[in-house]
C-alpha cells in the first residue's frame, strides 16, 4: 500500500543448502565431489595452455551438471574485481597474463560450487564422518553451513521489523557527528537483535539435538556411502585429464 517494498527479500527460497534438483553430479558421492572440487582449485597452478584445456573440460562438466546459474552467480559477484584485474594485467603485463589470472580466479571462486550446489548439509556431514571426523564436529560443520542461510533470513527479518517501526538508514552524504550517530544507532538496532536471535537459535538447536539423542555412542548412519558407477566415471575422467595434461608437459 505504501512504504518501500521488501518482498524481494522474501521472494527467494533458502539458497545456501538448496541443491540442484537432479543431475549426475547430484547423485554422485559427496567424497567424489569433494575430490573434484579440490582438484579444480588446485588446477589454478597450471600454466596457461593447459589451464585453458582444463577450464574447457570444467565448463563442460558445469554445463552437463546444470550448474551454469550457480557458477554464473559466483562469477557475477566478483565481476568488478575480474574486470579491473584483467584490464590492469593487460595494460601492464600482457593479454596472456590477464587471461591466466582471470581464469585462475574464476576457477578458484567457483570450484567448490561443484560440491556445495549439489550436496545437502546432511550428505556433507555423512561424508565428513566417513573421512574420519568425529560425529560431533561433523554435525557442527553441517549445522553451521545450513545456518548461514538462516542467519541471512533472520537478518532480513530484523531489517524489515526495524523498518516497520521507522528505523531506516537515511541516505545522506553528511559526515557530521550527528550523521555518524544515526548510522551507529541504525547498526546497533540490527546487530543487537541479530546477536540475541543467533544465540537463542544456537541454544534451541543444542536442546533439540540433545533430546533426540545427539552424542549417543550407539549412533548408526541411516545411509551408507558407496561409490557408484557415476563416481568411478567422474574420477577416471578427471584422472585421465590430469594424466593427459602431465604427458603434454
Amino acid at each position: 500500500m505504501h512504504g518501500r517494498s521488501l518482498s524481494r527479500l522474501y521472494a527467494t527460497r533458502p539458497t545456501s543448502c538448496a541443491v540442484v534438483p537432479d543431475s549426475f553430479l547430484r547423485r554422485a558421492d559427496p567424497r567424489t565431489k569433494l575430490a573434484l572440487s579440490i582438484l579444480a582449485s588446485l588446477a589454478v597452478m597450471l600454466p596457461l595452455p593447459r589451464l585453458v584445456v582444463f577450464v574447457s573440460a570444467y565448463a563442460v562438466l558445469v554445463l552437463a551438471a546444470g550448474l551454469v546459474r550457480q557458477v554464473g552467480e559466483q562469477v557475477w559477484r566478483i565481476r568488478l574485481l575480474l574486470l579491473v584485474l584483467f584490464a590492469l594485467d593487460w595494460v601492464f603485463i600482457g593479454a596472456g597474463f590477464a587471461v591466466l589470472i582471470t581464469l585462475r580466479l574464476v576457477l578458484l571462486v567457483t570450484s567448490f560450487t561443484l560440491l556445495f550446489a549439489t550436496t545437502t548439509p546432511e550428505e556433507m556431514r555423512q561424508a565428513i564422518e566417513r573421512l574420519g571426523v568425529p560425529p560431533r564436529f561433523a554435525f557442527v560443520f553441517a549445522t553451521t553451513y545450513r545456518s548461514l542461510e538462516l542467519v541471512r533470513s533472520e537478518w532480513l527479518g530484523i531489517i524489515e521489523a526495524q523498518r516497520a517501526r521507522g528505523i531506516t538508514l537515511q541516505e545522506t552524504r553528511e559526515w557530521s557527528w550527528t550523521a555518524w550517530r544515526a548510522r551507529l544507532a541504525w547498526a546497533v538496532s540490527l546487530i543487537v537483535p541479530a546477536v540475541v536471535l543467533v544465540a537463542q537459535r544456537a541454544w534451541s538447536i543444542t536442546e533439540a539435538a540433545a533430546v533426540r539423542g545427539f552424542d549417543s555412542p550407539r549412533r548408526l548412519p541411516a545411509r551408507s556411502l558407496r561409490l557408484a558407477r557415476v563416481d568411478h566415471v567422474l574420477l577416471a575422467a578427471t584422472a585421465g585429464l590430469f594424466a593427459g595434461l602431465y604427458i603434454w608437459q
Partner: protein
Amino acid sequence: MGARAIVAAEQAAYQYGGCGTSIGPFDFEAGPGEFHLLAGPSGCGKSTLARLLSGVIPHLYRGQLHGRVTIDGRPTEAVPLWELSARVGLVSQNPAAQLLTSTVGDEIAFGLENSGMAADEIEARSAYALDCFGLVDVIDRDPRTLSGGEQQKLLLSALTARAPEVLILDEPLSMLDASAAVQVVDHLRHLARTGTAIVAFDHRSDCYSGVDGLSTKALAGMPASTSTLPELPQNVPPFRFKVEGLGVRLGACRVLEDVNIELAGGQVVTIVGANGSGKTTLLRALAGLQAYKGRVLTSTSKPPRLGLCFQNPDRQIFNATVREEILFGLAHHDEDFYHLVLDLLGLTPYEYTPPLLLSEGEKKRLGLAIVLLRPGLGGVCLDEPTLGQDMQQRRVLGRIIRRLAAAGYLCVTATHDLEWARQWSDRIVRLDRGEICDCAPAPAPSTATARTMLLPPSLVNPCTDGH
C-alpha cells in the same frame, strides 16, 4: 510416587543461573498410557517443568536443582542425556528453532540414527511417522519451507518415531489450525492407548476435551492483572478503505489471489485460515511491507498507515530500557499519550526494565506500544498475538484491542485461535490458499460492529496502487 510412574518429580524446583527466582516446587508423576494436560498462567514454570521431566535440566542448564526428578526411579542427573532421550521425548515451543536438517526425511531419521537403529528399521519407522502426521508428500522438502503447523507436526513425528515411553509436549498445538489440532490430539490419544505417557503443557484445553481419562492439572502462578484499562483519546480520524483484487506472488508461488476486503477505523477484523493460507502475507501487504497487485480505494486523501506487530518481537528489541525502546527514533512524542499506552498495555512497572528480560507476552505488548507511538497511525496489524499466551493474557489482549478499536484504530489480527477471534472480533475473514473464502461478522458481535463497513460510492477515491 506411584508404583507405575515412569517419570516423577518430587518437590522439584529450579533456579536458573544468574537469575534470583526459583521456579517450582513441582510434584508430578506420569505412568504408562496416561494423558496429562498441564495448564497455568505464563511464567508459572511450564517450560521449566518440561525440561526437568525430560532431563534437559540439569544436563544442559547450569543452575540449582532442588528436590528430585526420576525416570524409572533413577535420578535424571545420574543418567546421560542421550540415554534419557530414548525414554523421554520433548518437543519445545517454537518448532522452527528446533529443526536440525535440510529435508523432512532427514529430520525424522536424525533421532533414529542416534538410537542406533538399522537402516531398514529407520526407513520403516520414518514411513509410519510421516504417514501418521500426513507428511508423506513433503518428505524431500526443506523443513524451513514448511508452515509453522507443518513444522510442529514434523517435530512430533520425529519424536514419536523414536517411540519414547513418555512424550512431553510444550504447547504442541500453538501453531496448528483447528483441524490439524484435532488430528494431532487424535494421534496423541492413540499413542496413549498404546502405552505412551503423554504430558502436554497447553493453554488450548478445549482441544483435549475428547481425550479419555485425561488428567488435568493447573500449575500455580501469578495471574495477569485484571484491573480496569484506561480509555484512549479519539485521536484517529474516521477512515474507511477498500482493497480490490489484491494478489501477491513470492517467487513462483502464488500466495494471495484476488483478495477483496473493506476495512474501517474502529473495527476489529481477524484473519483466520489454515497454515500457509496467506494470513501473514496479507498483514504485511496491509502494513505496506509487501508489494502486491491490486488497488486501494480510500475515504481519506491519504491511505491510513497501519503498523505491524511481528510474531517474534525479539527482532525489534535492542535498547536498554522499555522507555528507550518505545521512544527510539521519535522526534517528538506526547508524554501523556505515552503513559496512557504504557498503562493500557500493562508496561508501566517495566518502564525502566531492559526489554530482553520481559516475558514473551510482555515483549509482544512492547511491540504493540512501539507501533502505537508512531505518528499518524490509523491501525495495527497483529500477527499471531495470542501465540504462547495463557487464557488471562489472551483476555487482557482482547480487551486492549477493543480499547484501541474504541479509540478509532483499525485492528487486524491473524490467528489460529478461533475461540479468541470469536470473542473479540467484529468480523472474521477466512483465507483458504490465498483467497478469501468466507467473510462474516463474528458470532458474538460487539458494539463496534454497528459501524458500517460498506463504502458509499461518494467516499471512494482511487488512491494508490500496491506496487
